[in-house]
């Protein structure tokens, strides 16, 4: 294993205390079905989100989203001159995305060194955002999107997409529409929209054994899907069903995002007093 010389090192090996839980106390399944109990959200409900723009003073635009306990912060820098001359595109701008998970964001401590997983996440974010941005308006420049996941309580990638497009809008980057993200988990026949971490990692698989996860990015104004990532076993029909569920989830959150943007614009340029 490569040694990181740029960070303070701990012991060579350490283990999460969760590995040593007494065998009897298996974690109780969080949800086979959410409908149990009052006030619990239904299978097709998304978590209420809290969103704010313009929290990072140094960035051109920034946004913060909290959905349940999932917390994501994003800042946008640019448009500015491309760093590497040889990669300069003359006709359109370049979008760069960087997704990082803070080491304390998951149950098990993560490493700082960016793994392949984070690179995949960055790639998905980049590809979901790109169709929404009018890159032809920014020739020979680059726009950087930096996302930091502070706490992962499920569906963080979907919220990262929403957060990133909020930050892009806050930075004044021209876009066709805000790209919304939503995730779903299918276990057997049930679809759980916007799953929590416990629901994503349910240790009691459904009897049918079909487990799958889906993350979808949507531009609501045009009703176009800009990103779709699915993993696990699922047939064509259920994929479409899950995708539709995600799209509905996006539409539910769309007004909240619009309100957030309106609020931040009003704050930046208060309407003239008449």
């Amino acid at each position, binding site marked *: 294993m490569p040694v990181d010389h*740029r960070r*303070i090192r701990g*012991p060579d090996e*350490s283990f999460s205390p969760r590995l040593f839980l007494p065998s009897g106390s298996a974690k109780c399944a969080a949800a086979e079905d959410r409908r149990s109990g009052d006030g619990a959200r239904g299978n097709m409900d998304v978590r209420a989100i809290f969103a704010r723009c313009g929290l990072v003073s*140094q*960035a051109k635009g920034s946004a913060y989203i909290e959905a349940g306990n999932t917390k994501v912060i994003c800042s946008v820098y640019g448009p500015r001159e491309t760093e590497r001359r040889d990669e300069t595109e003359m006709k359109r701008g370049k979008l760069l995305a960087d997704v990082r998970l*803070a080491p*304390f964001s998951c149950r098990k401590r993560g490493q700082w*060194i960016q793994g392949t997983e984070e690179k995949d996440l960055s790639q998905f974010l980049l590809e979901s955002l790109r169709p929404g941005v009018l890159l032809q308006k920014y020739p020979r420049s680059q726009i950087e999107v930096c996302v930091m996941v502070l706490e992962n309580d499920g569906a963080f990638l979907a919220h990262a997409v929403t957060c990133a497009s909020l930050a892009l809008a806050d930075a004044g980057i021209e876009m066709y529409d805000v790209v919304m993200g939503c995730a779903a988990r299918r276990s057997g026949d049930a679809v759980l929209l916007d799953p929590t971490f416990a629901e994503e990692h349910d240790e009691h698989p459904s009897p049918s054994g079909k487990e799958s996860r889906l993350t979808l990015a949507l531009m609501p104004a045009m009703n176009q899907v800009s990103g779709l990532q699915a993993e696990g076993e699922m047939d064509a029909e259920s994929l479409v069903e899950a995708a539709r569920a995600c799209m509905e989830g996006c539409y539910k959150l769309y007004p909240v995002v619009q309100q957030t943007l309106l609020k931040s614009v009003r704050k930046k340029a208060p309407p003239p007093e008449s």
Partner: protein
Amino acid sequence: MAAGFKTAEPLEYHRSFLKENCRPDGRELGEFRATTLNIGSILTAEGSALVKIGNTTVICGIKTELASPTVDGPTKGYVVPNVELPSLCSSRFRSGPPGEQAQAASQFIADVIESSEVIQTEDLCVEKGKLCWVLYCDIVCLDYDGNLLDACIIALLAALKNTQLPEVMINSETEQPVVDLEKKRPLKVHRHPVGSSFAVFDKTILIVDPTAEEESLSTGLMTVVMDEEGRMCCLHKPGGTALSGEKLQDCVSRAVARHTEVRKLIDKVLESMKMDT
């Protein structure tokens, strides 16, 4: 007009304020920015704290893991602090491995932990020579507007005070540890180090709690870390203009006053958290 002057001649712009004993953001020379604290907001971490000093925002999350102690210190655990300055927090940082500033900050925090004995590593021992706790203290800057070190120390201290260690027993038959997540004990924090940072302008004017712009225009920076007994845990001046003894004395007395302020803030936030539960 003022905006143009500020961009074209930033140093002159700042000087014109300093001449009148005030600063562009309206502060006096010896005034800290408003400091706010939020403790325990990250549930996936065993302890966490978010600190804001003006615009500068820093979050510290502590994860605990089990490991075997070193041969040299069989009764000692580990504290592993790291400061991260991701590209998110300012355009001056690139993504990728930490740069010099982040590494120097990590080393500074590690020195403060060691010098102040905020945590006694013996407290982290579970069984001598076999098992101990590792505290991974990851400090992430979310918004960089100067005075990173002060914010990091406050975040670290508050997060340590928020940290709960689950109970661990060693099963005598299998010699394997058994963790009980239900029973938790708070981590013992022995000392309360608090830092105060200063910047020197034009080799003579001393200002406290510099912003990012003030930091880059100043001719020298200094951080003084005090504990509650008025002892210094760390004096960090990585170069820059020379300081006389009297100036240093001045900084120390300001650092003592700042210590009381921050201690009060942390206690107040912890108290309000207790009231809630």
